[in-house]
């Protein structure tokens, strides 16, 4: 495994993180925004696993396990929120659900 320099993984994860950030900022569909956030979380997971593996220490992977739990919980709540809003407004476009100024 030492064949792949650690930086490669980190750069890939940084790239995914930034793509996720860009997705949150430019997309208007709430579900896609949420998916972009999942992308960010996954990039963080990749970093954690990379470090964990190169440190030879499993704490990072335990943490990833918790992040996944949280992501699942967030997905349940987040999608419930999106369903609730869809029932009222029949749209999940962030721009269209603006009563207040954003």
């Amino acid at each position, binding site marked *: 495994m030492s064949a792949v320099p650690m930086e490669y993984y980190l750069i890939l994860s940084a790239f995914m993180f930034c793509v996720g950030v860009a997705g949150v900022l430019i997309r208007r569909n709430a579900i896609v925004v949420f998916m972009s956030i999942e992308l960010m979380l996954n990039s*963080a997971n990749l970093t954690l696993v990379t470090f964990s593996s190169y440190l030879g220490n499993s704490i990072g992977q335990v943490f990833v396990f918790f992040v996944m739990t949280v992501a699942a919980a*967030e997905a349940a709540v987040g999608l419930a929120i999106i369903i609730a809003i869809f029932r009222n407004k029949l749209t999940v476009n962030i721009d269209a659900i603006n009563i207040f100024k954003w």
Partner: protein
Amino acid sequence: MPANNFEYYLLMPYIVIGVGIVLSVVLEISTKKSKELLPWFSALLFFGTAIYSIFNVDQGLVLFSGMLEVGGKSAIFNTIFNFGAALIVLASIDFMKKYEADFGEYYILIQSSVLGMMIMASARDIFMIFMGLELMSICFYVLAGINRKKSSANEASLKYFLLGAFATGFIVYGIALIYGTTGSTSIQNLVENFVGYSSNILFVLGMILFFVGFSFKVAAVPFHMWVPDVYQGSATTVTGLMSTVGKAAAFSVFIIMLGAVVTYGAPNFFKSYFAVISALSMVVGSVIAISQDNLKRMLAYSSVSHAGYMIIGLAAGNKYSIAGIIFYLAAYAFMNIGAFSVISVIEGKDDSRTGIKSYAGLQSKSPFLAAMISLFMFALAGIPPLAGFFGKYYVFFGAIQANLTWLAIVGVLSSVISVYFYIRVVVYAYFKNSEEDFEIESSVGTYAAIIISAAFILILGFFPDMLLGIITSAIK
């Protein structure tokens, strides 16, 4: 670390709330009367835990192989969380009926969020911070949209959720880098070797990302854009909860992560970061609040600027300023919960009567509420000798000690600006004549919350040493 039975009494608050949640779920499932029982049960739970915690501040213990720090600083925070939550529960009883969302689940979620906060404030490991944060946040996402028939609540909930999860992304990425550079998630390790780690650029980057994520949670400029909409759209009592104890929980994490700076006097590498966001928050929050006509929205911007004042303490990073932050958080909890309780009484169905115009001539409708909202506004504006003043005083004191006089000056200037919009409420309540006619339905629970908040604002104002003494003994 060996933990014999004797030491478990310090764990009581966590056990009580945890068991309370389970009991509440059982109660909710098993009986139709849960709606009437749960609020009182929760209030009892919270008051009990708060009082129990405050008597344990002079003990300190790290349990569960360095996961949880009980007693000491965490006991102070537990008191703030539980007391605040108890007041909010009292204020919710009648309000949630008016808001058409008096579910038993509401109280279970509040209990869970408080458990999350307690875990955040007691964390000695980044795992605990993260899990506590998420437990609290997920409860808040739901609480913000608890009445799913209301579009405003839906919107608040969605915005809070998306930006909260976005912030979580930053926090997790930051944690990943911190873990990678320190090889552990223990805060003890982080604090002890802080200076050594800080030479590693990736560690500093991780800390900054972590702090950016939490800056979202405390609503500091430029990470504040969600605040006004969420605070305005959520149920008033929920806003009261999020803006006070929720914020206190996030600040407790800042204080934990800056432990090296506070306890060991390590150089504060993040001074300039905190100084900048605090100056921005104070000024932007105050300036935008001036033009707000909706009281909830105005208080949302004011909470941004209050976050700024508290962050001054983080920039200063000495013991005085940290004690100041904790004092400020306690005072802010009482002031804001009081203010939001008054708003919840005045508020009508369908989010009506949250505008400042509804407060015109309040004095003739209800002298009590007029006096109370004025007291809360003066306290928020930092007029001595009310609790809000001492919060600011301690924080400024720490800042000047840390040679951040310029920040203190920015702070007082933005206080002057903020005076304008706070006393505007008083102007409407006392100096203007009533424009609309409505009945104010008095409510025992809410009035109790208001009176308790007001009493503590006065007590903390006249005898600040009572609380500050406890705080200093807790953070030594």
